[in-house]
């Protein structure tokens, strides 16, 4: 197990399976009367969120609390960040409070990685810009594995706003490590730059892909949200979409939305995933979102178990690994003496 979880690529197959197996056991706690395990008693976990989030932040919070850690939420709004404090100063300040792990979400790619250079505690990347969101990939893999069994040789199709998606990149990496085959489907404008170097195939034709005519039969389809907020001038809820990416939302929905007809193209066993929040009527129809094949709520539930497993594996034995002697990290020491 690595010291931090910054990228899905930090995990090899054994490490990923260990977290998924642990998450299976963690999930059982949800059926118990006493939803509390003592594993992280006396540890402090800080959720450092520079970007809005409901499900990720609250599931990290619940995960930490069910493992008996003390969890503190620090969000950019209403903190010294809004007064102009730099990322480094904020991170060092929070670390100086004596935290055992930092969960970081930031609108800039690489922010979590940067913080590891300043702060001496395990860092979990809870989404950095359009780069990565490894715990989302883990919970998607967990949900898929529950429904499909071993993912080796399975074919997963990921559809939507791939260019702005950190979920897509993490999923391609993790599903690849787990032996699954991935096909990305999006209009050319929403394909990520450099996608040809990724471990996956690509297509612009959703109908053909779902029908198995592009890369073979499909075992699951994951719809991604159209991230209007990252498209610049998009009018939320309006008729016209972000300039330059696709002509209108209606056209996008017709070409790339998961309509009831497309749901019927899928094989019987193939479930539908969406990391949320959903734009109903845009990338996914309500009929697909609410069908028995939709695993959207399973994904949310899996989020808690998977994040418990991640916190446990990163924090168990962390003292020994860090050789913790009470000496602050060089950057912290410098900041203190400065």
């Amino acid at each position, binding site marked *: 197990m690595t010291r931090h979880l910054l990228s899905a690529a930090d995990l090899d197959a054994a490490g990923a399976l260990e977290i998924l197996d642990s998450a299976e056991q963690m999930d059982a706690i949800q059926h118990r009367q006493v939803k509390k*395990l003592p594993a992280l008693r006396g540890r402090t976990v800080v959720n450092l969120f520079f970007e809005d989030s409901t499900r990720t932040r609250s599931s990290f919070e619940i995960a930490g609390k069910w493992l008996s850690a003390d969890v503190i939420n620090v969000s950019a709004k209403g903190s010294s960040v809004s007064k102009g404090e730099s990322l480094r100063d904020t991170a060092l300040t929070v670390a100086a409070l004596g935290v055992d792990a930092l969960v970081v979400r930031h609108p800039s790619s690489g922010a979590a990685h940067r913080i590891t250079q300043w702060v001496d505690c395990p860092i979990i990347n809870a989404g950095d810009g359009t780069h990565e969101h490894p715990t989302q990939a883990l919970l998607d893999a967990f949900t898929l594995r529950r429904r499909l069994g071993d993912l080796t040789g399975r074919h997963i199709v990921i559809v939507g706003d791939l260019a702005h998606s950190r979920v897509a990149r993490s999923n391609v990496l993790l599903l690849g490590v787990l032996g699954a085959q991935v096909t990305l489907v999006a209009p050319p404008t929403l394909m990520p730059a450099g996608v040809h170097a990724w471990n996956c195939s690509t297509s612009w034709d959703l109908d053909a892909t779902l029908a198995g005519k592009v890369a073979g039969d499909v075992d699951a389809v994951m719809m991604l949200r159209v991230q209007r907020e990252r498209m610049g001038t998009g009018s939320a809820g309006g008729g016209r979409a972000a300039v330059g990416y696709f002509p209108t939302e209606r056209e996008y929905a017709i070409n790339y939305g998961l309509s009831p007809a497309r749901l019927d193209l899928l094989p019987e066993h193939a479930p539908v995933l969406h990391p949320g929040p959903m734009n109903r009527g845009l990338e996914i129809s309500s009929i697909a979102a609410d069908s028995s094949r939709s695993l959207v709520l399973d994904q949310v539930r899996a989020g808690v178990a998977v994040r418990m497993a991640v916190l446990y594996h990163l924090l168990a034995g962390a003292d020994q690994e860090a050789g913790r002697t009470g000496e602050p990290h060089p950057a912290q020491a410098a900041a203190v003496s400065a």
Partner: protein
Amino acid sequence: MPAQPIPDTSAPDTSGPDRGDSLSPAFTPPADPRPAAAGAKTVLQTDDIARVLDRIAHQILEKTSGGDGVVLLGIPTRGEPLARRLAERIAAFAGVRVGLGSLDITLYRDDLRTQASRPLGRTVEPAGGVDGKLVILVDDVLFSGRTVRAALDALTDLGRPRAVQLAVLVDRGHRELPIRADYVGKNLPTSADEQVRVRLAETDGADEVSILGNGRVGQPAVPVKNGGPA
């Protein structure tokens, strides 16, 4: 045979690599199929283990007045198959179907801060729960007593049993906590730096209990005095 479905504990399921329960105090490689290493002294063989389990099953029936309200909870990895075997024997001897489950203690250990993370075993609650039951914890080796302490904590989170007892295949001494077993397969006087290895057909391919001297090849030279599971 019991009508109540007994979960199959034999498959090498999610428990992953061996937590090193039986090879105290150091870790053992996962599911070692080889015969005991040179220098190992075999203490119990397949027949001995079968007889010992027969006796413990009879003792449980005797001490619990026929096994009424008894629930066997095996502590993974090797407590699980032992609990299952005891349940099968009790069913065969007295026609009583006792509750059967497993109780993972990994997250209740007292050395989580210092030891690297371990794979989790599984906790399977018995069909009728544990409230008001006579719970018998089943483990392979009783050593420091720390595993049992952790198990008592874990049990508290599952419910409130009427009473808790402990059955072990081997008691090797060197207790570090005020804990004793109610049913002991074999008392095995050992020195602290020796290692007791339990192998079971379900997890390791064969039944055998052996003592390994200190300084065994491939094992850490420095015994972990307090870190090992009980």
